[in-house]
Every structure is written in C-alpha cells, then in structure tokens.
C-alpha cells in the first residue's frame, strides 16, 4: 500500500483530566501531583495542562454532586441558561467547554485524556469515540504496543494482562484502569495509569517532531448493548453477576454460559445468539444506570499511516 500518509496538524495543547468522578482516585492523585509539579508531563513544544474537572465531588470523595459530569456534555446542557441555578456539573461542563473547547474551534485543545477507574477487572482500557480519526487510532495503538512491551519488564506485580481499546458513543477520549474500589488508591493501578500517560505524551512528542507512523491494524472492542441485572416488579435487583462471569472482562461469553446468580442460588444463563466479549462487569457506579455489564464485539480496524502536516 503506497498511498501517502494522512496529514494532521501538530498536537500543541494537551489536557489531562482527573476527578471527573470524584472518587476515582488514580486520576485525582495524578492530576493533583502534576498541578503541583508538572515536570513529568512536560514535552518539547507541547503545552500540557493537568486539570481537576469536578473539584466539589473530589472534595467529598463522591462520584458526583448533582449529576454525572461524564454524561453532562450534551448540546442542551452546554447551551443552557441559568448560571448558578443549574446543577453543579452542568455549570462545570459549560466551564470546561469554555476553557478547553469548543470542539472544532481554533482555541480547542488538540488532545484530552480523561482519567477514570473502575471496579471492573478491565486492566488498562483506552476509550475512543466511534470515529475513524486515524490520529487517535494511531495514538491508541502506540500506547497499547509500548505499554505491553514495557509491562513485564517494569511492573511484574501488575495484574493487567492487556491493553484494550473500546469504541463507544458516550465517552470523550478516556483512560479507564481497574479493578480498583471507589475511594481507594492502589499503587499498581496508580503506576499503570502513570505509565500509560507517559506513552501517550511520548507519542505526541514524536508525532510533533515529524515521525511518520506507518499504517497499522488495531484490534478494538465495539460496544453493542448494556445488560441490566434481573429485577423484581419493584425494580430491586434479584441476582448478582455469576462467579464464572465476575472478573471475566474481555473473555468470550457464549450463549448458555452462566451470567447471573440469584440470591437464592439459581443460575441464569446468557441467552444471546452469538459469542460476545463482556466488559464493565460489576462496575459499582452502573447499578443505578441499570448496567450489570456491557457486550462488545471484536473488530479489526485499519489506520492509515499518519504524519505531521
């Protein structure tokens, strides 16, 4: 394939968000660290800004104060009037959009990383919006390949077996590392997130220096649907994630496999028509969002070669 590389502008301004959910501690801790001393995240010719997006939720060590900030960036919310009467997170979304966006405008930041933790056994997961943006795909691929190469050398205790890339519709470019309970800081999870970001910034620096990244194939998991817990007539949960499925993120779930275990010991089986790859299994914050896990399908995408314009 001899087609010329796709050209992208330099990535001059990079933001790193922590505390979008105030109790997801790795991002909160890293961003606070870098706000105090940002030398670790400095790169040649890149302006890197660490930023706590939801300070009130961080202060209370809670996911959110009024409403989930990570669902607040809707067009309605961003244009809503009312200032101080608006829910706290809607005000924050408007403020963040002002500082770092709006998307597509010349002042907008080029790359934003939103740091998250999950109680699910997801390892390191990079989350991309479902676009065919080759720059983002190449960046994710670089991070994945480099992280896996360095993982066994430097982090023998790290439990993450893989770096997965998820395509979905509802996050901004995110980095999700788990398993970690809300409100808890685990050293292995903290270090993994730190290393991933280091690779991300290295990629941007290399790209800005003019390095060409050849075409690559990227394995991704495309989100299909959310599966809720079985509930009774009053909406109460009547079963738990089955022990066979618990912690089985990224492992195939086949029709007929155990899926839920009722409180009185009955097994409920997956009734889908084909094999899927479950993730976000038993994420604490999703009980209220009616989500026991999410199904995905494996896909291979091709990203064309890219180079600085």
């Amino acid at each position, binding site marked *: 394939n001899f087609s010329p590389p796709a050209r992208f502008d330099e990535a001059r301004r990079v933001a790193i968000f922590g505390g979008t959910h105030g109790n997801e501690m790795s991002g909160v801790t890293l961003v606070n660290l870098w706000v105090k001393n940002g030398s670790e995240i400095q790169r040649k010719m890149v302006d890197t800004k660490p930023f706590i997006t939801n300070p009130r939720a961080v202060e209370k060590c809670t996911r959110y104060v009024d409403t989930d900030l990570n669902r607040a960036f809707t067009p309605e919310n961003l244009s809503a009037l009312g200032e101080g009467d608006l829910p706290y997170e809607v005000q924050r979304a408007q403020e963040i959009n002002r500082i770092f966006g709006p998307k597509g405008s010349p002042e907008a930041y080029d790359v934003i990383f939103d740091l998250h933790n999950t109680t699910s056994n997801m390892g390191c997961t990079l989350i991309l919006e479902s676009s065919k943006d080759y720059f983002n795909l190449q960046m994710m691929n670089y991070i994945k390949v480099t992280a896996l190469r360095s993982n066994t050398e430097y982090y023998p205790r790290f439990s993450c077996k893989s770096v997965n890339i998820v395509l979905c519709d509802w996050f901004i470019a995110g980095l999700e590392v788990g398993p970690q309970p809300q409100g808890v800081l685990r050293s292995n999870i903290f270090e993994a997130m730190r290393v991933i970001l280091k690779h991300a910034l290295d990629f941007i620096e290399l790209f800005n220096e003019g390095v060409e990244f050849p075409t690559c194939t990227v394995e991704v998991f495309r989100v299909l649907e959310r599966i809720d817990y079985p509930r009774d007539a009053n909406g109460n949960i009547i079963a738990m*994630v089955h022990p066979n499925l618990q912690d089985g993120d990224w492992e195939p779930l086949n029709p007929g496999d155990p899926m839920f275990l009722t409180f009185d010991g009955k097994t409920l089986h997956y009734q889908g028509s084909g094999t899927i790859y479950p993730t976000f299994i038993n994420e604490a914050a999703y*009980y209220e969002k009616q989500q026991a896990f999410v199904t995905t399908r494996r896909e291979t995408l091709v990203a064309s070669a890219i180079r600085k314009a």
Partner: protein
Amino acid sequence: PLCCKPEKRGKVVCLPRLSRVAVCGGTHGNELSGVYLVRELLKAKDIVMEEEREEPASVLMVLANPRAMQQCRRYVDTDLNRCFTHATLNGPISDSAPYEMTRSRELNAMLGPKGSPGAVDLVCDLHNTTANMGLCLIAYSDCDWICLHIFKHLQRQMPDVPMRFIHFDVSSKESYSLDSVGKHGFAMEIGPQPHGVVRSNIYTAMKDGVQHMLDWVRLFNSGTIFEAGFVDVFTIVKNIDYPRDSETHNITATIHPQLQDRDFLLLHPDDALFQTFSGETLRYKGNEPLYPFFVNECAYYEKGIALSLARKRHVVVPAIRAQTEAERRRDQQGFASEEE
C-alpha cells in the same frame, strides 16, 4: 463480666440461652452483601426457630441505616457504627441532631437498651471491607465464649474460607458499635469487596456464615455441649496513618505493593509499608512484628487509618452449654450455676 468467670479446666461453662438474636445489615449503606442478605431474609419474614425442650428463639432482621442505603453511601451525616457509646445513646439530643444519632437511639430501643436485661442476647452486624481480610468476626472481648464458639463452628463448617477472630480491646464503657447493644455481639466483616458492589463469592460467604451462626444458636439452645478448644485471637495494638502533606492533609503515599492485599501476613520491622508518589519506599519502624489488617480500607482514609496492626494470641476456650431452665432460675436467685 459473666463470660469471664474463671472456671476449672475440664468443666463445662453454663451460659444463658440466646432467646433473641438480631442480624443487622446496611449499618453502612454501601456495604452491599449485608444489605442484600438482610433484604432477602426479611422477605421470609421473622424466622421462628422451634426448640424441642425450651421456648422458641426468635431472629430479628434489621436494616440499620435505610437512608444511607437508599443513597448507597456509608452514612448520611455521621458514621452510624460510632453512635452506640453509652454517652451518645443517653446524652442530650437536639432537633438538629445528625440522622445517625437519632437512628442509633431507635436501634437501641429496638434491640437494647444497651446494658439492660431487656437487650437482645446476640447481635450479628454485617459489614464489608475493601481490604483482603476474608471473613472476620470482630468483638470487644477475647473471652466471650459465645462469640468464640460461634467462630470455631464457622471455621469447621466453612474450611475453604479464610477466617480470623479480631479483638478490639475497648471497655464496655467506651464500646461504640451496633454489636455492643446486645448482651453478646460481634461484627461479621467480609472482604475484599468494593463499596457499592456485591460480589457473589462474598455474598455467598456471608449468607453461609449467617446460616451457620443461626444453626449454632439453635444447637446451643437445645442443650448441645460444645467441646473446649482454642482460637487464635488477633488483638489490635495500633493504627498507622498514611503520610500526609502538612498543609493540605492529603495523602502523599499509597500502601506499598508488597503490603497491598497481604492482610494477616506478619509485618516485620523494616518491611515495606508505603510507596510515595515519587517512588520512594517507606518502611515499618516498629520494634515487634505484628499482623496487619484493614489494609487500604476505603472508609478509613478519612479516619486516618492506612492499616491496623495486631498481636496474635492462642486463647483457650472452655467447653460450654446452655443453662437449663432450673439452672437459670437458680442463677437468678443468686446461686452459682451448677456444673455438669
């Protein structure tokens, strides 16, 4: 206290029957195994256990902090499980008192009053922890033979579940938790489980633990003699806080990877304790090796506890059985209980 009366070796200690037992969940509203278990048990209404010889015993199922449960938070205003000191239960209370202080008085009226003859005989308070502690029974006494025999029974019935008995050396004047309201009581603490999550293996362990405990109570009440033996008791010595920034009070280090998840594995002087954010290892500076537990418990960041440390002791547990009706009447009239 009655439980600590010295008895001759080889004799059987006779203790009053346990007529009323309370199983409490949701004392912390986001510790979900207990929340879901008590909800399920409540669906079966009050369980009445028929006894062959004596009156039936009853089991009360209680959801201790419903408002915190509704919000899936540990507490609304203040930690309910610190609101059961005599001072808090009996002191003055204002209209604007924290929710949990009002609630603790309601629970004291329901299950107590603490320290009175009308209190329930046994309180089992269900908890989860983010620490890798397995199943722990936590009690204020290391010589409450009821609690220790329940522990031994659970050990026998659930050999695949790692199990420990933790002793908080706090006098009854200063005991502060819900389980102190009953004549006997303990917390059943199971981890690791994130708050706001129910893990099926943890739920199942708690369900089995409660069932075996209730089975033991039934056996005890029907006159079974439980053989003497011993229990390894972990008595708390001290807590260690995270290193913190002197200005912001924020933590400046995490539990070291060599300590994380290693609850109840002996920590020696100079072993790694913390890892600072700049990668430095901070070491344990104590003089004696101790057993760590509650390592990296989420709720304890705000209480200034990164881990707790305990000494382990072999405690000899005498044989026990329930008092007969005749013995109970004699006991009430002031005579010492007759030994078998």
